[in-house]
């Protein structure tokens, strides 16, 4: 399916989706979705015979500091059946940086969302285990935000005895 045809089909299946201009995206199919319809739209895109996006290849975010809404969460979808790709973007603002989790649709979202939370501080509502992934629990700030200073130092973390103190952070996840 050509990107144009794919975009048409996706918009027909998910009316909330807005296709983005192909030129700026270098001929790749990209749609923007409101976060309210996200999980429902993902389930449709995964299960419908014309799209069959079985894999969430990657999930990340981009910080457009100075723009409102500030963040864009980016999902790279891939279909093994039809061999086509789709990029889905969801805009969220800093004050309310929360997106419903896609981990119920694709399991690859489990760690990808943890990393995104770690790096950008975007929360994923409904995620079963939203902890920091690459950084440690005592890390302050979210380093891939554009306003995180490059030379920022981190406070020392008190030494922890792994035997007497539990080896997992509290169940609610790192703050």
């Amino acid at each position, binding site marked *: 399916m050509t990107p144009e045809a794919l975009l048409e089909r996706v918009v027909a299946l998910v009316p909330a989706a807005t296709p983005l201009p192909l030129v700026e995206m270098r001929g790749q199919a990209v749609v923007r979705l409101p976060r309210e319809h996200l999980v429902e739209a993902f389930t449709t895109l995964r299960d419908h015979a014309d799209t069959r996006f079985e894999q969430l290849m*990657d999930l*990340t975010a981009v910080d457009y500091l100075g723009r409102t809404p500030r963040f864009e969460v980016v999902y790279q979808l891939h279909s093994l059946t039809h061999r086509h790709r789709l990029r889905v973007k969801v805009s969220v603002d800093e004050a309310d940086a929360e997106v419903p989790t896609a981990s119920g649709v694709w399991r690859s979202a489990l*760690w*990808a969302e943890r990393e995104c939370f770690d*790096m950008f501080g975007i929360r994923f509502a409904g995620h079963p285990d939203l902890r920091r*992934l690459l950084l440690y629990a005592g890390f302050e700030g979210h380093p*891939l935000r554009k306003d995180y200073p490059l030379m920022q130092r981190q406070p020392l973390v008190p030494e922890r005895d792994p035997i007497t103190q539990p*080896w997992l952070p509290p169940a609610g996840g790192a703050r």
Partner: protein
Amino acid sequence: MSEPAVRTALARDRHEPGEIMAIQMGPSHPASHGTIKFNLKLDGETIVDVDVEIGYLHRGFEKMCEQFTWNHCFPYADRLNYASPLLNNVAFALAVEKLAGIEVPERTQYIRVICGEISRICDHLTCLGMGASEIGAISAGFYMIEAREVLYDLVEAITGARLTVTYGRLGGVMKDLPEDMAERCRAAFVQVRRILADCERLLVRNRIFVDRMVGVGVMGRDEAISWGLTGPLLRATGEPYDVRKAHPYLVYDRFDFEVPTGTRGDNYDRFMVRMAEMQQSMRIVEQALAQLPDGPIRVDDPRFVLPPKDQVYNSIEGLMNHFKLVIEGQKIPAGEVYVATEGGNGELGFYLVSDGSGRPYRVRVRPPCFYGMAALGDMLRGAMVADVITTFGQINMIGGECDR
């Protein structure tokens, strides 16, 4: 397998449940290559639950790239997967070129294929050699390192460096292949094929090896797809997805090669898929060398490619061009792109956002082994402690790529 499922299975086998013991394996465990921690909960020797902790090698690659020009990112891209730096180099170059709308000359595309496939063999040899020696087949491990050494000599002849190659350039490659490349490759592949045949005889029907690998770390096709696995891990489950075939890039559609697949999705299949892939990679290199056309190795576009040194030193235009490119960087038109290539461990993707200035606005790598590590917990629950080593070995986690 989930934690409750393991507990149910344990309760079925025995009358009373054993005491749960918490053990931290790692971060620097002698039997795991790579800095990683497994927080294990054990009932006897059975893994009831495991929490995999990564991030010990996090260097802030993505943040670093935002601070430098596009050209400056190439050395960093090398150091993502240091078992196959050329593949990363090429993947990053392809992504930036797609964003800039550059089409590289045909000869460059062939050179990139040749480098990439040699690198892929190195990557697989590292994975399998280490994996074999970790479970006791240390001589097979050494043989494979010997083969890798032969290939590193090739890499050195092409790029001038063995590991930190920085060979890719925006719009081309650093320099041309050596003149006797075909001859060197032929000689090297004779050795590699001999060593691979030796290793196959040592391992493939070896009772101990087979017992440790077959039926261990099993993950079915549907689960593997849902976990976002690609590369040998996915192909071992029987799904023939290879980016080189599914979404051909460079000149991969001109070569005759096969995509080996497994059936069970266990460690043995992952091992065999990688063994078969090395043979296919050598076939691709031989075909590419036979078809290799003449021509330039860089695009002729002063907006993106550094001028030759004699122009820089002898003409004001060359000097200015050099100065602007080095200080301000290549002005890539605003936009964004996701480019996927087949890395050593699976789909290696770069998602780039440019705002039109000389620096990347956002660089995101899709590291293939990251998703393998995410799925590792599911592969391990219900297995034995000793199976951690083989399964982890076949995921082929490369710290530089997984933690970035």
